[in-house]
């Protein structure tokens, strides 16, 4: 599955970059993430809880930054396993920050996600819908944390 898009943010790239590198702040922007544990400066573990009808499960993952070009580009690798089906998920993510003007940054993301195992039977449409909502919510929370609110005129 491929996820890509652009998120305009009213903030300087340095402010967005700082948030992306702060594991607790970043995790706070991703809905459903809990049990965040920093392993080192570029790695953290976490879980996402989800349910489909009466079936509940937990997705445990490790995210690792594999390339960093502050404050312009970052690549990360994510590995995870779900508690119900023991399916595995790997994601390769790339993010770039482009300064468009004063307090104007465009975050471009590109992620390829590969799911192996029974989780794939749930169907891409359900997984894609979930990812779409997570990205929407991430965008809201990111903006709330870093955007510069113009002073009232």
């Amino acid at each position, binding site marked *: *599955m491929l996820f890509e898009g652009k998120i305009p943010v009213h903030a300087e790239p340095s402010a967005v970059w700082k948030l992306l590198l702060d594991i607790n702040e970043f995790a706070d922007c991703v*809905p*459903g993430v*809990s049990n965040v544990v920093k392993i080192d400066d570029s790695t953290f573990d976490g879980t*996402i*809880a*989800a*349910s*489909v*009808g*009466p*079936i509940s499960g937990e997705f445990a993952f490790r995210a690792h930054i594999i390339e960093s070009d502050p404050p312009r580009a970052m690549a990360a690798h994510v590995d995870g396993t779900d508690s*119900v*089906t023991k399916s595995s998920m790997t994601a390769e993510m790339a993010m770039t920050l482009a300064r468009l003007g004063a307090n104007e940054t465009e975050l471009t993301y590109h992620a390829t996600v590969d799911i192996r195992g*029974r*989780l*794939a*039977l749930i*169907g*891409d*449409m*359900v997984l*894609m*819908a*979930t990812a*779409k*909502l*997570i990205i929407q*919510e991430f965008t809201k929370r990111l903006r709330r944390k870093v955007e510069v609110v113009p002073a009232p005129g």
Partner: protein
Amino acid sequence: MRPQRFDVIIIGGGSAGCTIAARLSEDPGRQVLLLEAGPDPQPIPDSIKLASREARSLMESPHIVMYPTVRKGDGSTFYKVSGRVMGGGSSVNAMAAIRPTRSDLDRWASLGNPGWSFDECLPLLKRIETDADYPDSPIHGSDGPLYVKRPFILGDPADEPAAAFIERAMAMGLPLCADLNVPDPFGVCTAPYNIKDGIRQSTTVAYLDPARGRPNLHIVDEAIVTSLKITGDRVEQVVYEKDGQSQSASGERVVLCAGAYQSPQILMLSGIGPAAELKRLGIDVKNALAGVGENYQDHATVSMTFEGRSDFRPDWVIPRFRLMFKSDPSFPCGNFHITQRPPTRVEGLAAMMPVSASLVEQRARGRLRLVSTDPHELLEIDDAMLVDPDDRKAVATAMQFIYDLVQHPSMEGFYGPIIYPGSDDDWEQHARNTHGTYHHGVGTCMMGPASDPMAVVDSTLRVHGMENLWVADASIMPTVTHANTNLTTIMIGERLSDLLKEA
């Protein structure tokens, strides 16, 4: 004691194989061998036995084989599945006991298959079932091995989103159809299931278990058939692996019931199939039949996900009713199953409420290809789903119907705006890129007259050009049914049993 030679060898203990094993072993003078590739766990574990575990079982069961399949739209991968355990698909499916429609069977007959019209098959369909809801109906059975009941009856109290869904569908012109097993169902239908007192009525339970004590019925599980040894037009031996050892069995008659994926694979590995394909892999051609592995059809499923508006937390995963929707009013029966799906929830997000549409027909034909001569290697599937423009148009029509059904003031307490696909997206393309399957692959050893170059078996299910080899499973269906395929497969097993008894 195992005989030197069997009267009948059945390859595959699935929906048809268990049926045939039980029926043919009724005669104590007939020695029957049933070979099943998967295990035959006794007692049946709760993960299979308890109907309430169905959805969880699909996610966890070790008895499911997953076939990676590439979508035509964007080249992404999804999976077909088959059951590898005694009972086959009937031990891992969602237990919907839905009949083929009149138009399905009449079409089979019209393709040159005498004896397969709806009216001619109705006695078989009645004989299969004990329908707890319609014991006195002239179209239903009351004393068959398979217990059938509708867990939800129209008029029963339904959860609020379901009640609103039904009411809205009726307002959009769909009639109530209390019995999905009428000849040509259409409308808001309650679905029958083969569940009795919470227990899955697989063909293991309904057919095989009552026959297990017969001394003339011999069952070998975890026996993977690798090939048939053929001399002239006869199968001389069935070769299989058991406990890592190659073994063989001889039989007067051999019936292949390994399913839509395995039956053509076993035929091709034995030299029965498209000559060029077999030669490509160095397989000695015993009987050139171009249709083996061809004519593949399945049901494509697309989902639309809406924002959930209520704290609706159902205790079901498999819906108890479905809409039989016609994308073209002139069709004889519904060509879609439209179903509510339970919500997906992630902490911090709005609930997601999917509605799915399964196209229960396929115009284009796919194919299965042998990848190698290794019998353990999965076939390659080219399913041709949503390749035909009319199929894609039909899907877009069904998606629009779902959108109009859900995005209505009467539904806004339960369904919010659409999340995925977007309302401005190209829904046809979206369906091609993201569709799944209803898991009803069929047709790969098509039944038809010898004059049809793609036919593999004749109307008595005997393989063309072979004297003692039959195929009886979902692979023989000329066209996929407008229904879940398990009951039709059992019907095929019943028919083959009659044919062999008469032969």
